[in-house]
Every structure is written in C-alpha cells, then in structure tokens.
C-alpha cells in the first residue's frame, strides 16, 4: 500500500514537472476549433495552429499577439502537444487569438482531409465554373466565384 502511495506521489510530481518544463500554465494555448457540423477541439492545449486567412496564411504559437482574422478556404493544420498533426479543411470562418492566449477557430464547415474526395471536388469545381460563366448578375457571379475558389482549394487539399 505504502509503496503504491509513493509511486502515485512520484507520478504526480512527474506530471507537475512535465507541466513546468513545457510552457507556464497561464500561457498554454487553449484551442477551440469548431464548425457548424462538428467540434474538433474544445479548449485543448496544443502546440501550434496554422490557418489560412484572407490576409495570408499564418501560424499561431502560444503567446501570439492578440488578433482577429477571417478564414479563407484552405487547410488548417493543428500540431498537438504530443507532436501529432491533424489537417482539417475549412470553407470559411474566423480566427480569434485573445490576450489570454486562447485561440478560437470557428468555421462554417470543416472536414478532416482524409474525408475529402478528389473526384467529387473535381465535379463540383467544373459545376461551379460553368455556373460562374453563366451567372446573370453580379451577385450570382460573386457567389459562383466563391464556389469556384472553395472547390479549387478542396481539390488542391485533396490531391496535395
């Protein structure tokens, strides 16, 4: 019994140390990554997040300066604390980095890269292109242009 208690103590101390050797607790980057269809991360501490934004793709590390950005279609890469990377395709949305180093990535729709189908993307791209060419007014044209952009990005993500 006593031995087990010692073991547990050691384990606890080790855990504490691993926290300390990482980043200080208050500066952990808590990532919330959610989309309309699914939640990928809910306040999970991660190492790095790379996001594609309208003003260019950028990576977020802990203690990033607070900022707001609007997502453009593309692949969000999340590097978890254990080094595992997951790539998730997003259609549009927002990124918020707050002063407490928490990060919110909110997407309209998001899917893991492995769920994307190249053939279907190709199909939707050609459909969107034909819609773009036959669009009657400005609004329809803009909508079709967005569809083309998304389809192109999906294609790029699925093949790359």
């Amino acid at each position, binding site marked *: 019994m006593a031995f087990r208690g010692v073991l547990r103590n050691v384990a606890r101390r080790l855990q504490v140390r691993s926290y300390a050797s990482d980043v200080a607790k208050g500066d952990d980057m808590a990532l*919330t990554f*959610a*989309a*309309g*269809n*699914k*939640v990928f991360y*809910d*306040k999970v501490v991660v190492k790095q997040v790379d996001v594609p934004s*309208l*003003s260019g793709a950028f990576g977020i590390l802990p203690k990033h*300066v*607070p*900022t*707001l*950005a*609007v997502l453009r279609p593309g692949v969000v890469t999340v590097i978890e604390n254990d080094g595992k990377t997951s790539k998730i395709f997003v259609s*549009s*949305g*927002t990124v*918020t980095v*707050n*002063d*407490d180093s*928490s990060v*919110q990535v*909110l997407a*309209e*729709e998001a899917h893991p890269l492995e769920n994307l189908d190249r053939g279907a993307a190709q199909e939707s791209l050609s459909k969107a292109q034909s819609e773009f060419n036959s669009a009657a007014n400005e609004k329809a044209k803009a909508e079709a242009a967005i569809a083309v952009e998304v389809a192109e990005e999906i294609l790029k993500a699925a093949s790359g």
Partner: protein
Amino acid sequence: MLGRAAPGVCQVVAVANQQQNRNMATLKAISIRLKSVKNIQKITQSMKMVSAAKYTRAERDLKAARPYGEGAVQFYERAEVAAPEDDPKQLYIAMTSDRGLCGAVHTGVSKVIRTRLQEPGAENIKVICVGDKSRGILQRLYGKHIISVCNEIGRLPPTFNDACKIAGAILTSDYEFGSGKIVYNKFRSVVSYQQSDLPLFSQKAVESAPKLATYDSLDADVIQSYMEFSLASMLFYALKEGACSEQSSRMTAMDNASKNAGEMIDKLTLTFNRTRQAVITRELIEIISGAAALD
C-alpha cells in the same frame, strides 16, 4: 303580465322534459367524451415520443454547438466591448419557433422583450421575431417595434444556413443599431431552461472598445467580415439552444398532458359506470313496481 309569464312556464316545462330523458343522454354524452379524451391522450403520448426522439438529436447537436457559441462570444468579452452610450438605438432578436404546445418557452422569451419594451427609452428599440410564436405574442401591442419576422423555424433542426439567412436579413434591414441582444432559451437540463441573452454590437462599438488596441493587424474590412460571421455563429448557437429547450419542454408538457388525460379518463370511467348502474337500477325499479301494481 300573464302573457309575459306564460313563456316562462313553458320554459320550465321544457327544462323538466329535458331532465326526464337526461339519464340516457348523459350515458351517451359521457361515452363520447370518454372516447375523445382517450384520443387526445393517444395524441399527446405520441407527441411526447416524437419530441423525445427530436430532443435526443437536439441535445447531441447542442453539445457540438456550445463551444462554437462560447467561442463566438469570447472576443466580445475579452476585448471588453461595451454598448456606446451616445447611440440609444437597440435591436432585440427574439429566438422562438413556429410550433406551440411546449410549455412556456416562447412566452418566456417574449416576456423578457415585453418587459424591456415597457421601460422608458423603448422608442429606440426595434425587434426581430424569429419564429411565428413571438410575433403572435408581441404583434398586437408592440407591432410598431417589429421590423421583420422569420418563420419556418422549428419544423426541422436548425442549420447554419438558417442562421446565415437570419443574419443576412439583420444586416440588410437598414436599421443602424448601436447595440442589442439575442434573447433565447438556454438549455440547462431536461426539466429546466432559462432565458438568457447574447450581446450584439455595431462595428463602431467594437472599434471603440478599450482593449481593441491590443489586437494586432486589424482593418475595417477584417472587423466587418469578422462581425458578420460571428453574428451568424451566435444566431446558430441561439437557434440550437432554443430548439433543444423547446423539445425538452414539449416532452415535459406532453407528458403532463398525458397524465392529466389519464386522470380524466379514470374519473369519466367511474361516472360512466355509476350512471350505467343507475340507469339499470331505475329500469328494474320501473319493471318491478309496474308488476307490483298489476297484482
């Protein structure tokens, strides 16, 4: 005098006549009523089953939507955005649905807005009703505050597309509000929900927030797109919370209705049997006393 009294007498006779053959009629009436109550119970029971199934789905969806909604509000809290004092114009959004028979979910939301509209300064408040129910409640007294109404909410689980449409309607409504609130029912447990609100701000309010300066590389375009998207996300979250509260509340309401119908059925069956017994007894007495008179 006599002429006037005569119809009265006639009436009394008529009543007496009615009472005479009433026993048979009540038996019939009771059995009709019993049947209708039984049918109602069947309906409320199946409505309960349906809303129980819908509730499970709504709750599952809500679990996914919660981090989404919280994430959308975080920025406003962190940046300490406050309503501008020089702009009294406010926008209230009532998140209800088209369907009733679900307890007080819709009344609760409407009441919050109604109380606000009774306070001074109400002339600067405009309301957008999401769902027919809030419109029905607010329209008669506060019709001039309502700028638009969305319906076809609540038949199907809400999607992000619905939220986008509502957000689009708000952004194109030409109403320049300084601040506002989304009033919705926050789901707490199967038996409990609470009226709650999410903040809305104008772009000007965000730009003058005290802590906005700490945020890097912002321009008006980014803020505008960011706010439009966050409006849609908050609406989406509020829709999900509302849908879940509504289904859980409907489940409870229908459960209670079924129980009440059960009680009514018990009472009616008792009365029905008593009356039937009374009729039989009376008929027997009539036969026996008839036979006795012949002897």
